[in-house]
């Protein structure tokens, strides 16, 4: 329902109240008037009748003239409609109309009731009647004629009838009452108009102007003056409006966006902006026109699409559009929201158009930059790949170099060591023995040096790999004790293992762990005091296993400890005439690190040093790695086997001569030699030797290929084959094992080890 205007209904309600009050008052007053009128009229009527009766009673017919004059006077008064004197026979004797005289009463007053006349004749009292509407009243009364000459008492009676009509009087009363109200009505009208004026001036007028201001504000005329007038409440309203307007204006000035209101057909209803240079044309020219008229077809279609989306969803954001405006080519981001004007069902759309040109440009720049970057990354990657390949190739070359170096260094050393050993075995003279021992000692040192340098080089270049498996600590300790025993004996140092028999397993590479532990033991022996002792201790803690090697040497200062694990640092070893490369501990640390373990030292000068190894504790079988076959223990039980045939395939005559010499030293062993692989294979088939010593670096085909041939031939398949090679690299050893070699002897050949192997592998079951 539409609320009526304050300006209308307040005065109207007031007016209605005034009218109700006035009308009630008038009605009541008229009612009172009417009662009064009736009362007065009845009194007058009865008085008139009485006057005529009194005159007629005494004066008829003598005073007829006077009676006639009185009757005429009575009849002449306004309310009187009839004034008649008639006799008991109903003949009119006198009337307000001369013409009625002599006529029958029933003719001139047909409405007069006969019974009433008769009743009145019997009575002396007047009989009066008022009509139901109160407008007509009449009275009738009888009188006696003067007695005739022969009568004592009048025998005839007459009647006086007077009738009133109050219609006019009542009308006049009403009129006079109403005219009496004229001042009231005028006053009322003045009050009403005054109220209207006051209301208009102080309330509805100012509110109406505020309404128009609101209209203008909604059209975007933000610099409009807001009139502050009227009643206090209205002024407060205006102040609120002003505040709102300032807020709006400031917001709008601060906002760099364009705001439009358009209808569903894309017609501009409102345009607001503080940056007109962003509009296609001036705001005045936009209003009432459609986007189709002012925008390029493609942009207009986009706007229409956005409006349609907003109609469905209520609001749409982020639609981007590019337009040519006076400020240049500008990108806009459109945000559209639907709204409905109060009181209508027609939706309109509020469109905020944001200038996103700068962002757009930045995005473009960024994209370009990205592209360039990608290109550069690709280039760089290629370069790096190339460099990596080159590095890998270089590394490969280095590895090959190391491998070759190892081979090339070992081969002559093999000859030196081998023949020095032979010499030592064959010479009985103590002088010569002493010289050969010097040679062997030097050779062994050189060999160790070479091995360690190679190992270190491999670790440094990352080529060193360890194969982690579960290793029984007690086994490793026992083995090392055996190996260190001769050296310890020489130095008269006692080496003892404590608490290392327990079932402790660590995760480690067995060979490397042995190498590290042996190195520690060797140092402990070398740097010990003459006749001192070395203690090995094992214990497990927090999932780690610690192996301690404690000596009774001079101990280490803090400065010593800092340099301890640095390659080629020998501390005071040189002054003390202790041989060594200075690489051992550095290599040990690298190896321990490779095995996820650690190495360290606790020491005080003068109190010896306690080196420790730390490794992760594990359980057997946890690491599924085939345990490296343990080198068979040398058996010196003195059993002399009958002739055992050993085939040696070796192309290097020096090496071949060394092997022949060693084999000759072994009783019951017969040696056959072949310098070519094919020759060797043929001899193996023909003679079925007990053992084959196979050089890996052979002409025609290498040792692995020969081995494969041997394994493929049923006659030679079961013959144990030992690889003999200067290829001492770890992968060579591994490859040798997997190829099916029984063992691997590296050059320079450890003669005693070779003899032990031959002894062991050719032993025949009894």
């Amino acid at each position, binding site marked *: 329902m539409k609320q009526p205007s304050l300006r209308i209904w307040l005065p109207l309600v007031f007016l209605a109240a005034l009218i109700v009050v006035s009308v009630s008052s008038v009605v009541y007053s008229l009612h009172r008037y009417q009662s009064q009128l009736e009362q007065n009229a009845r009194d007058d009527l009865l008085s008139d009748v009485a006057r005529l009766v009194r005159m007629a009673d005494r004066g008829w017919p003598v005073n007829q003239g006077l009676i006639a004059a009185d009757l005429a006077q009575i009849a*002449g008064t306004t309310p009187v409609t009839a004034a008649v004197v008639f006799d008991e026979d109903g003949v009119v004797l006198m009337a307000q109309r001369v013409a009625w005289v002599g006529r029958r009463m029933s003719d001139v007053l047909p409405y007069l009731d006969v019974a009433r006349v008769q009743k009145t004749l019997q009575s002396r009292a007047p009989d009066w009647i008022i009509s139901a509407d109160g407008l007509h009243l009449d009275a009738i009364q009888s009188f006696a004629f003067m007695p005739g000459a022969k009568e004592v008492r009048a025998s005839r009676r007459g009647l006086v009838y007077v009738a009133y009509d109050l219609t006019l009087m009542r009308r006049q009363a009403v*009129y006079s009452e109403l005219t009496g109200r004229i001042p009231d009505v005028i006053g009322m009208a003045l009050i009403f108009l005054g109220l209207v004026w006051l209301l208009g001036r102080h309330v509805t007028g100012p509110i109406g102007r505020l309404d128009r201001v609101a209209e203008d504000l909604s059209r975007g005329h933000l610099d409009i003056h807001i009139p502050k007038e009227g009643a206090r409440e209205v002024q407060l309203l205006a102040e609120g409006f002003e505040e709102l307007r300032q807020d709006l204006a400031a917001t709008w000035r601060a906002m760099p966006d364009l705001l439009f209101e358009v209808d569903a057909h894309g017609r501009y209803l409102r345009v607001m902006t503080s940056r007109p240079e962003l509009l296609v044309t001036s705001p005045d020219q936009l209003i009432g026109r459609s986007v189709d008229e002012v925008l390029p077809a493609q942009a207009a279609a986009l706007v229409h699409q956005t409006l349609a989306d907003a109609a469905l969803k209520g609001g749409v954001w982020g639609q981007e559009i590019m337009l040519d405006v006076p400020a240049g080519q500008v990108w806009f981001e459109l945000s559209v929201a639907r709204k409905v004007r109060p009181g209508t069902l027609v939706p309109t759309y509020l469109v905020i158009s944001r200038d996103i040109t700068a962002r757009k440009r930045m995005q473009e720049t960024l994209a370009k930059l990205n592209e360039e970057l990608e290109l550069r990354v690709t280039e760089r990657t290629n370069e790096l790949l190339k460099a990596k390949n080159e590095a890998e190739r270089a590394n490969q070359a280095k590895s090959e170099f190391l491998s070759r170096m190892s081979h090339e260094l070992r081969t002559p050393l093999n000859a030196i060591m081998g023949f020095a050993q032979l010499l030592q075995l064959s010479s009985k003279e103590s002088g010569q023995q002493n010289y050969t021992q010097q040679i062997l000692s030097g050779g062994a040192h050189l060999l160790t040096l070479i091995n360690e340098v190679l190992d270190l080089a491999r670790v440094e270049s990352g080529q060193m790999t360890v194969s982690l498996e579960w290793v029984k600590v007690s086994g490793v300790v026992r083995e090392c004790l055996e190996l260190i025993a001769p050296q310890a004996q020489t130095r008269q140092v006692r080496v003892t293992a404590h608490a290392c028999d327990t079932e402790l397993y660590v995760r480690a590479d067995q060979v490397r762990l042995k190498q590290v532990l042996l190195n520690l033991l060797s140092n402990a022996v070398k740097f010990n005091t003459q006749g001192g002792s070395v203690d090995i201790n094992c214990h497990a803690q927090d999932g780690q296993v610690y192996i301690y090697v404690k000596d009774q040497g001079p101990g280490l200062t803090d400065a010593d400890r800092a340099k301890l694990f640095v390659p080629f640092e020998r501390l005071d070893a040189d002054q003390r005439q202790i041989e060594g490369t200075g690489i051992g501990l550095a290599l040990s640390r690298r190896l321990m690190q490779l095995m996820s373990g650690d190495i360290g030292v606790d020491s005080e000068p003068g109190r010896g040093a306690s080196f420790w190894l730390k490794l992760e504790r594990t359980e057997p079988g946890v690491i599924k790695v085939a345990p490296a076959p343990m080198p068979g223990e040398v058996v010196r039980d003195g059993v002399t086997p009958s002739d055992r045939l050993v085939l040696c395939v070796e192309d290097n005559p020096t090496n071949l001569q060394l092997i022949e010499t060693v084999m000759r030293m072994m009783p019951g062993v017969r040696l056959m030699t072949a310098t070519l692989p094919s020759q060797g294979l043929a001899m193996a088939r023909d003679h079925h030797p007990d053992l084959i010593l196979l050089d890996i670096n052979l002409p025609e085909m290498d040792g692995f290929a020969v081995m494969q041939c041997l394994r493929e031939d049923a006659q030679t398949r079961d013959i144990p084959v030992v690889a003999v090679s200067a290829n001492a690299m770890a992968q060579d050893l591994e490859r040798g094992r997997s190829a099916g070699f029984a063992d691997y002897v590296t050059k320079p050949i450890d003669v005693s080890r070779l003899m032990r192997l031959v002894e062991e592998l050719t032993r025949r079951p009894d």
Partner: protein
Amino acid sequence: MTRLMNRRELLKGVPWAVGAGIAASAIWLPGCQQPLAPLKVSSHVWVGYELMFLARELGYFSNDLIKLVEVPTNSASMMALSNREVGMAALTLDEFLLAREGGVDVKAVLVFDESAGADAVLVKPDIRRLADLKGKRIGLESSAVGALMLAKLLESADLRLSDVQKVEVSLDRHLEAFRDNEVDAIITFDPMAQQVREAGGVVLLDSSQFPGLIVDVLVAYGDALTENPAACRALLSGYFKAAAFMRDKPQEAARLMAPRLRLPASEVAVAFERIRIPDIVHNQRWLGGHAPQLINAARSVGDILLQAKLLRAPPTLSAFCDPSYLPEAV
């Protein structure tokens, strides 16, 4: 939006219109709706006045506008006028003059008739000549007409007032007085004159011998006229319509008028023969123009009344007559 604004402006006018309406109704209410009492006209029975009653009988004017008050005598009529019981009255010219001298501020709006035999001096058959009246009893109403006729009678008879015996008889007793020989002569007028004639009266002298002397006029208070001019106009218009009716249908008119005149219908026409009824045009002459005829007549009558000492001074004749209520002449 324009539509809304228009509506707004329209609404703005509503209260003012309402206020104006109230004010207008406050003024209009009394102006148009004032219920007026009917204009009362008193008259006694005289043939010259009868057309007025014929008009009432024929319904030519509304009883709401005009109330004809029938009084027994012209004296009563004069009294009613003086007492302002009525606003208008039918009077003879002489009565009119007397009334004006008595301070009754009335003026003539119609000339009913000019007596041309209606007023007469009737005598017993034994009196043959005017001179025979000497020493006789002459009955007359104590009215100006009576005085006028007496003056003319004495003038014609070349007698003095002392030569005759004047007997005052009220109009309603004229016949009775004549019949009962209370008087030898009676100065009366129709219809009484006719009745007296029938009772053996002989006309010795009548008004036909003094044209313009006995004139009946309708007089009215000026304020009564201004208060209700329409009523007066309606009355005069009805009066002339009735005159036309009588011209067209004399018998019907006579039948209607007879009861009041207490004459047989056949004699009504005779009664009318003794008066001259001026039509609208003649009335204009009587009342209007540079020298209204009525003024002249009033002067003559005034002189006679002055001589008869009925008037103390010559009549003032300003605002004497007003022809403006006469209907347009057809």
